[in-house]
């Protein structure tokens, strides 16, 4: 998705993981992916530069859907969609 498209998305839930260090943001996302129903869009806010690369890697590995990243000033908004149970 383009950044413009991502900005239009209304996430089902937003997880603010700023202030945690790697792998904290990823673990916070995983908790949310487990809890939310299939079809949910989860926005992860991370201040950890590695997350923008780590999250798509993990999402692909567990076969969920990665939507994209919006880089902000000093943090990243990372969008994923739960497409199957896990």
């Amino acid at each position, binding site marked *: 998705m383009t950044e413009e498209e991502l900005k239009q998305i209304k996430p089902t839930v937003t997880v603010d993981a700023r202030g945690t*260090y790697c792998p*904290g943001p990823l*673990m916070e996302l995983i908790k949310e992916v*487990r809890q939310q129903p299939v079809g949910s869009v989860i926005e992860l806010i991370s201040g950890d530069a590695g997350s923008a690369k*780590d999250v798509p890697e*993990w999402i692909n*590995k*567990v076969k969920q859907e990665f939507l994209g990243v919006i880089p902000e000033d000093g943090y990243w908004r990372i969008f994923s969609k739960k497409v199957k149970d896990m």
Partner: protein
Amino acid sequence: MSDKLAIIIASEEYEKSHVASMIASVAAVSGVEVSIFVTMNAVYNFLKETVEKKNFTGGKLYEQIKEKKASMFYELFDQAKMLGGLKIYVCSMVMDILNIEKEDLIDIVDDNLGLAAFLGIMDGAETITF
């Protein structure tokens, strides 16, 4: 990466336990079956007494982890156990030598184990040593 990962932690250096817990966490939540074998001086890091007093042997990064209040390795292991398949075993030979019991170890430890049993777990697993 294979679907089994075995991590041996032998050093008491705090940073080694920390990186082991980071790798184990991400692997465990990615569907990898993770087994940790804690042996030699690393056993001190898994003693209740060491954890309560934060009496770890660490270097410059350990000081920063404390200062920045980042999660400690035992917290990362605990979280990983809740979210994925992760088992932590402590070397029974070291427990014998130090004369410690399971209740002297922090709660995230699943069991004590001998080498033959851990070699069985390592069979077919990717193995990392710290």
